[in-house]
Each structure stands twice: as C-alpha cells, then as structure tokens.
C-alpha cells in the first residue's frame, strides 16, 4: 500500500495517454456488459423455466390449435397437478408495430406461474371484470397505461362477433416479476371473454401448460400425455418448459452464435489496443526501472509494482465501464422500448467482467514486468546517461 503514491505518479506521467487508455478500456467493458444484457434478455426465460412445468403443443406446429377439452384429459394423467391453456391473441396497440405478448388465460395460469406477482386487490378486480386484463409492468410503462384504463386492442387474427378486429379491454391490474428474468411484457385477458366473443375457432386453444408434482417424472408424463392423443386428428407434442423455450431459441438459429462471435471480436480487439498501450508505457520507463534497481529494489518487488500498476489501470477503466453499463441497463431500461421480455445485468456477467479485468491487467503487465526483471542495470543505465 505504501507504494500507492508511486503507482499513481507513474500512471499520471502522461495524462493524455492515461485518459485515452482508460477510455478505451471503459468502452470495451461498457460494450461487453451492455451486449451481454441484451443477450440475456433473449435467454432469461430459460433460467426461470420451471422444471416441474410441461408444455403441450400441436405436433405439427405451435400455430395449429388444439381442442380445449384436452385440458380435462391431461388433468386425469397421474402426476399432473394443474393444467392451464394459452392462445396467441396476435394483439397490438394502435399500430401493428406495437405487438403485444397477449394470450387469454384462466386463473389457474397464475397458480402455475407464481412468479407473476399480482396483488390480491388487482386479482379481485380481474375476477370481477369480464373484459379485464392483467398487464406486465414493463408493458404498462411502455404505453403509459394505468390501472382502470380502458384500452382498445386490435388483433390480426381474431375477429369478434361484432365483426370487428378491435377489442375493448379494461386494465384490472399489474403483475411484477417475482424472480429476476421473469417476462414482464405479457397481457392476460380472460379466456371466458375471448371464447364468448370470438367469431370463429370456438373451443380451440393454442397450447397447454401443465404443472406436475414431481419434476423427475417429466419425461414419463410427457409420453403419457402424447399417447392419449396419438392417432387423433390433433396429435400433441409435450416437452418440459425449458426444452420448449430452448427449441424456440434455437429457431433464431446461427444468427445468435454469429452475434456472440462478433461481440467477442469487439471485446478482444479493444483489449488488445488498450493492453498494448499499457505495456508500452512501462517499456518507456526502462531508465527509471534501472534507477529503482540501483536503489536496491528487488526484481520481485519491481514485477509486483508493474503488475499492480497495470491492474490498477484495468480496474479503473474496466470497473467504470461495468458500472456505467449496469447503470445504463438499470436506469435507462430497455433500448427497444418494451420489446425485450426482461432487461437486466446478470450476476454471472459481472463476475465474468471482473475476471476479464484481472486477465487484462495481468496480461498487459506480464511481458513488460518480465522484461523489467531481466533488465541488466548497467546496460539500462547506459541509455540514461
């Protein structure tokens, strides 16, 4: 600690270089953290997927509908605790660009998804209002909605019996995320209202979500459910919720992988640039190191000093970058204005970031420190005088 003054003096000897090096390290870590948060937004669902939840869809594709009567037959399978169903509503608010993750549900849905946290009062409102909807908090913010508002929502798919594709809903309540990573964009109307008012497709729903008693029996129960409907006009495919979401993610395909690769290129290029400057600043000080050696500093101590210097630089720049990105994500919120299901910095990203700070600090300090240690004091002095 007593050398802190020396470290600081060394860093400050060329202020412009210090500022620009810090800024490039900062930018690298800012980008790393921010982009990791964007990536997390797409995969967060996987982490909150319950191991004790199954999803049953039409075997041919998710967009094919299934008879609602399947719910009772699924419930009769041993080990199944609760069954709920969803139907994609294809809703949008005012403009088709404002797509909503909207699906009519029944109250069991909230029992299967306890992480959708709704206050007792809001839940009571929803029960009372036939046209009521429960809305995720980020969607509320996105459109500036308030509880009690009446909102017209249009859909590209479902005409109602008035021959219109615009449906009136009343906001009964808000749900918040009970777990980090919970999707807070969903809009949930009553299935009963949807069923009565739709002009076609009565009795058909999109998919089922199933709560089972014992997660270890997931595969067995899935097979049993699918066997119930084999050779019927509507065959099913049941999988654990996580596998279902993973399958969905896989649809994005190579693009995700390419993106990760590109982000790595960004990060490592910037680290190379910053690391080189840091190394260079040590190389320039050969004469000073010779002086330190002449004063009796041991090689080990000089190596430690130089490593401490590069670590300090990496920590200052990288720490600020991480912090700034964290602040941007937390305070600035979703850059797409409510399109991402969840937007936050994962703890694992921060841990990785801190690890990268150490790698950068050590790697950029190691070579010059080794050279300094090998330095022959006499030869080095010859350069000074």
């Amino acid at each position, binding site marked *: 600690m007593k050398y802190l003054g020396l470290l600081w003096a060394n860093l400050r000897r060329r202020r412009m270089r210090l500022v620009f090096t810090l800024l490039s390290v900062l930018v690298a870590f800012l980008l790393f953290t921010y982009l990791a948060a964007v990536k997390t937004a797409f995969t967060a669902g996987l982490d909150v997927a319950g191991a004790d939840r199954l999803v049953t869809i039409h075997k041919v594709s998710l967009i094919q509908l299934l008879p609602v009567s399947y719910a009772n037959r699924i419930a009769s399978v041993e080990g199944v605790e609760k069954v709920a169903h969803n139907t994609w509503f294809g809703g949008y608010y005012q403009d088709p660009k404002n797509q909503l993750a909207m699906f009519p549900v029944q109250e069991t849905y909230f029992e299967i998804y306890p992480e959708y946290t709704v206050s007792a009062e809001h839940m009571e409102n929803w029960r009372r209002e036939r046209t009521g909807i429960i809305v995720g908090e980020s969607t509320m913010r996105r459109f500036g909605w308030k509880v009690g508002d009446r909102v017209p929502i249009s859909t590209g798919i479902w005409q109602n019996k008035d021959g219109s594709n615009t449906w009136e809903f009343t906001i009964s309540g808000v749900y918040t995320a009970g777990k980090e990573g919970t999707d807070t964009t969903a809009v949930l109307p009553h299935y009963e209202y949807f069923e009565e008012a739709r002009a076609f497709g009565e009795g058909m729903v999109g998919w089922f979500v199933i709560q089972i008693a014992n997660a270890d029996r997931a595969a067995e129960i899935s097979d049993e459910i699918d066997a119930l409907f084999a050779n019927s006009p509507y065959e099913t495919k049941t999988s654990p919720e996580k596998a279902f979401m993973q399958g969905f993610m896989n649809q994005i*395909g190579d693009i995700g992988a390419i993106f990760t690769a590109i*982000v790595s290129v960004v990060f490592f290029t*910037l680290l*190379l640039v910053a690391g*080189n*400057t840091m190394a260079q600043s040590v190389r320039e000080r050969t004469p000073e190191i010779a002086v330190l050696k002449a004063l009796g500093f041991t090689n080990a101590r000089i190596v430690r000093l130089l490593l401490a210097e590069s670590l300090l630089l990496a920590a200052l720049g990288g720490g600020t970058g991480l912090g700034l990105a964290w602040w941007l994500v937390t305070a600035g919120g979703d850059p797409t204005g409510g399109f991402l299901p969840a937007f936050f910095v994962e703890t694992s990203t921060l841990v990785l970031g801190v690890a990268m700070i150490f790698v950068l600090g050590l790697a950029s300090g190691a070579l010059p420190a080794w050279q300094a240690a090998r330095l022959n004091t006499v030869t080095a002095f010859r350069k000074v005088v």
Partner: protein
Amino acid sequence: MIAWILQAVTVSVMNLRNLPARWGSSLVAVIGIAGVVLVLVGILSMARGFEAALTDGTAPENVIVMRGSATSELDSGIGADEANVIAEAPGVAKDADGNALASPELFVVVDVPRKSTGTSSNVPLRGVSPAAFGVRESFRIIEGRNFTPGMYEIIVGRGASGQFAGLAVGDSVKWGQNSWQVVGVFETGGAADSEIWADARAVQDAYRRGNSYNTLRVKLESADSFAMFKDALTTNPQLNVRVLTEREYYADQARMLSGFISGIGVGVAFLMGLGAMFGAVNTMSTAVANRSREIATLRALGFGKTAVMVSVLTEAIVLGIAGGLLGGALAWALFNGYQVSTLSWSSFSQVTFAFRVTPELLVDGASYSLLLGLLGGILPAFRAVRRPVATALRQL
C-alpha cells in the same frame, strides 16, 4: 503555396517511409480499426442479406390481397367465393388462355429439423394454385419436377433445401397424419426460396381448411393498375380486404428484424470506434513523441508547422485506411454469401438468407476507418508542433 505543399508532401513521405520502424504500435492501431470495420460491415451485411432475401424477386406489378385486419399472410383468411370475386376485378393480368393471373394460396407452418443442429424450425408451407407459376415469372424447377395437382407432393425452395434436413428429392416427410413426397427443388430468387410449396387442394385437405385460403397473389396488367385494382376491391361491399404490393409487404416484414440488427450494428460500431480511436490517439502520440528530435530538427531547418501537422495526419489516415481495408477484406472473406436462416417474427417462420457484403457497405466501412484515423490524428498533430523549436532542440 506550392512550396508549402511541397514541404508537406516531403515530410509526409519521409514519415511514411519511417513507418516500419514503429510497426509494432502502428499495427495495433491498424488492428483496432480493422476490428471496428469488420464488425460494422459484418453486422450490416447480415441486415442487408435479410432484407434482400425478402424483397428481391418482387415484381412491381405483383400484389398481395389479405383479410382487412391481417398483419401477415399467416393471420389472413379468404374464402373461395371472395377469391373468385377478387380474380375478376379490373386490372388483373390474363395468361395466354385468358385465365386470370390470380393465385389463391394457403400459408401454414410445418416443423422441420435444421441441418446444422437437428433442432426443429418453423418452415413455411405454401399451398399454391396453378396461377401461382404465372404470377411469379422467375419460378423455375432446378432439380426434379413440379408437384402433381391433387397429390401429396411438395417442392422445396432452394434456400430451404440448403438449410433443412430431410427435404432432398425422393425423401418422404410426415407432418401430422399425412405423408408428403419431395419431388423437386425450385427457385424464384425471392422470399419463396425459403418456402415449401404444395398443391393448394392438398394443403386444404391436410389442414382441414375446407375451401378457404390465406391470401391471394395477383399479377396486374401493369404497376399503374394498382390504384384501380385496390379501389375496386376496397369499395366492394362483399369484401373486407387489404391490398398491398408485394414489395411493400415484404419491405414491411423485413423492417423489424433488419432494423434491430442494423441498430445494434451501428451502436456497437460507434462505441467500438471510440475505443479504437483512443487507441489510435495513443499510437500517434507515441509516434510523435518518438519523432520529437526529428520534428524539432525539421522545424529548425525551416519546415512549417502545418507541414509537420499534415505529416502526422497523413500517417494517422494511412493507418486508418489500412485498418479499413483489412477489416473490409476480412468481412468480405468471412461473411459474404454465408447462408443462414432465422425466425422472422412477422411470419413466425424461417427466412433463409445469405450475408451480403455490398460495395456500398465496404465504402461505408472504409469511410468510417478514414474518419477514425483522422480524428485519432488531430490531437497528436497539435502536440507535435506545440513546443517552441528552441525548447525542443535543447533536449537533443
């Protein structure tokens, strides 16, 4: 004036010839900028490729007719009676036999494993009527033969056949309770290359659609007939439809994803550019510091301040451009023509596309690298001439 230019050129040339002496730190600046350009061009080429896959091959006189409220072909629904009314509207082109070039079509999604990972993907299955081939003039079979009407036979778009497994000619695929025979591969040079086609009647039958369709694809006599055709349909009380040109429809479909990708690309390239520029500033400052004796000597010999500044800026720009060219070349080699497919949100199905490193993108990348080099050189250029000659010389 001429003497001034001569001075600047002399010092710049001399400086550039000395570049190899500083190759280590110069190389880092070049790599930094190359990385930026690689990322910028790479990400934007993805967006371009996606757009092109949807909008290429659209003919200006081709239109899509959907149900009034529909936002995509998937949402839309049109009955057989309505389809007949639409086919008789004014402005619809006729083939040699006098049949209207209006193809009622179905659009459903089927589950097909991806070749690279084996994971399942939503691939669009389009049920087409005989007029479909007249509407899409660029349609041609490149392998096998076309499907036989009324049979459970499919032909696969070129893009889809490259990305998805089990769709080779001769294969048989089972979706739900129906087996389909793959009999050919086709190409249209547009969005349909990501699709699988079958006879509309077979698709209606397999998917219990009775006698209804999703959309109509119509060829008009000319692009100018669009207003007339659209008015005729929208004022007809029997119909509640939306009429869009093919081009409008696909541009709209492409907008969301390509906008998202481009937005991220530009944002990342901007921030990363800052980082690389800071790197370039450091490199140039070091170069200037190393040249301080040389610069002082030149000034003492009578070379002007501007000549020295120009030489520093020239070096920075040369490094920038070198980085730009390297990054552009890498992007072109790595990405151009690279085939991928991804889920298009608007149609909830896979679009197959190839990255497109266009000349415009390369020019954009090179311009950006030039700008970064220039910006990175300004501060060091001023530093190079800040010290009075006498003070600088005293240190020699």
